[in-house]
Structure formats: C-alpha cells, structure tokens
C-alpha cells in the first residue's frame, strides 16, 4: 500500500483539475449510463406493452419461466455488485491484492449469471418451444434479456481486462478512477436486472 493511500490523502470524490470537480471519466460514464437508461426503458416498455395485449394462443409466461432459477441469478448478480464495490474500495486504498481477489470473484459471479441465462434460453427454446421468431413473447423477452446478457458479457470482458492489466504494475490507487468507472458500469447492469426481475418475471406471477 502506498503512503498516499495509507494516509488517506487522495480524495476519490473530488478532482480539482476539472471545472466540475469530478473526474472526467466519471462524468462520461454517468452520461453514458443515463443514455443507457433510455435504451433499456424502451426495451422494457416494448415487452410490457405486448404483455398487456397478448395475441390469442400465446403461451402463459408463468408456464415458461422458472422463478427459482431467476431468483438465484438475481442473488448472484447482487453479490457480484458487492464484490465490485469491495474491489473499488480496495484500489482506492491502494490494496492491489484485495482488489484482484474481489475482481476475480466478480468475474466468477458474472460467469455464473451468464451460465444461468444460457441454460434458461436453451430450456425455453428446446423444452418450451419459445423462440425469438415464433411469438411476440419470445421476441420481446429474448431481445430484452439478451441485450442485458450482452451488457453482462461486455462487463465480464472489461473486468478480465482490468484484472490482467493490474499485473502489469501500472495500476495504482492513482488510477482508481478506471476501476471505479468500470464498477459504475457493472452496478448499472445490476440495477437494470433489478427492474427486469420485477417487471418481466415477478409481475407475471401476481
């Protein structure tokens, strides 16, 4: 741990070199996430609109979904968010070793989530005969959850890249903003899933 971090002299919430007082990378990430809200908002709306008026003969979503599996995926993603927050906390204190373990666990949880999603999709297509082209439910469901899954995949690749980069010796607490920006993206993926879990899955059961 470096002396700067140990003494707590680096303020990670304030950057005097920018006009806003916020690191530019953080502003960029928040602006991107705000725009991504719109993107997911449209996808979720589309799914809900078609669920309001399902065409005759549509398979009841309750018979297709597996709430146990989805709840497990949700729990895993929430725990990955915890590990990501701990990774950011560790790098801000200059504790590289702890950050690596936290990142590795986050990647592991992200892979479990993706594995669950692949299993779920496979089950829907081969067991429940729900595909992206044979029904409106399939089209909107696979587009929405598939786009979210793609975001998780991008996050896992980004995390892996950052983990590899940490071994080059060029990642110190002064570059904590890079890990923090990545963390913001990962937490965003988590909050989108919180909304999808309620809007797409749980509402079908009430």
């Amino acid at each position, binding site marked *: 741990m470096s002396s700067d971090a140990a003494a707590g002299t680096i303020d990670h919430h304030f950057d005097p070199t920018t006009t806003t007082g916020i690191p530019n990378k953080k502003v960029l990430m928040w602006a991107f996430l705000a725009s991504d809200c719109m993107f997911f908002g449209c996808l979720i709306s589309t799914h809900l609109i078609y669920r309001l008026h399902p*065409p005759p003969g549509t398979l009841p979503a309750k018979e297709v979904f597996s709430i146990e599996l989805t709840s497990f995926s949700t729990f895993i993603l929430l725990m990955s968010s915890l590990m990501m927050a701990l990774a950011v*906390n560790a790098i801000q204190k200059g504790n590289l070793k702890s950050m690596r373990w936290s990142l590795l666990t986050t990647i592991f949880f992200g892979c479990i989530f993706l594995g669950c999603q692949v299993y779920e999709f496979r089950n829907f297509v081969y067991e429940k005969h729900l595909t992206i082209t044979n029904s409106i439910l399939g089209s909107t469901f696979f587009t929405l959850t598939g786009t979210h899954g793609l975001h998780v995949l991008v996050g896992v690749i980004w995390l892996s890249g950052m983990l590899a980069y940490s071994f080059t010796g060029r990642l110190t607490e002064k570059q904590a903003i890079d890990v923090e920006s990545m963390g913001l993206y990962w937490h965003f993926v988590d909050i989108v899933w919180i909304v999808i879990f309620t809007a797409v899955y749980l509402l079908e059961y009430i």
Partner: protein
Amino acid sequence: MSAPASTAPSPGHELEQSKFWIYVQIAMLLAVITGLELVTVYLPFVRWLLFSVLVVLSTVKFMFVIFYFMHLRWDRVFCTILFFIGLVLASATMWALLKIFGAEASKPLPMTFGDPPAMVFRIV
C-alpha cells in the same frame, strides 16, 4: 507555526474503512429484499397491493445500489442530476408508452377470415 502532529486517522480514512461494512450490510439487505419479493408473489392479496409492494421493494433495491454501491451518496450532486435526467426521461417515456398502448383503442383487432395470411409478405 506548524500544525501539531497527530496519529489519529483522518475522517476520510475512517469513512473508507467503514465503507467495507456498509457494503456488506447493504448486500445482505438486498438479498433479504429479493427473498421478500419472491414471497410476495405467492401471497393471497389483491393484485394492486402486490403490484405496489413489488414496485416499492424494487425501487428500494435500486436506490440502495445507486446511492451506496455507485457512490452517489458521497459524490458531487452533479452526478446524481446527470443520471436522474436519463432515469426520469426513461421513466416518463415508459409511462407514456404504457398509457398510450394501454388504452382500449390500442387493443389489436381480432383476426378475421378476410385478413391476408402472413405468408403474403414472404411471397412479396
């Protein structure tokens, strides 16, 4: 005159230390709320009540993640405003779309024998 030397950690340093436990406690809380959501859908109450409970619980989870895990609580208010612009726009768009397509006139008309089959589009 120089400032007296102190061995006590700075308030910022203490905050960084305490954040670890804050994150762990919040993660546990989020897991409990997810469990509650799961139980809620099986409760024999009226639909609107269950719907409201689910919306409130997911909003609480959402807020905990953005304000604690995403550091909005400790960051400058500008970040909160920036994110909430997108969030409010997205929520308003969702609300408007659901209102428009939820109207009686927006319901799709039933298929009749006079309608052209979907295959026509493939042939053309």
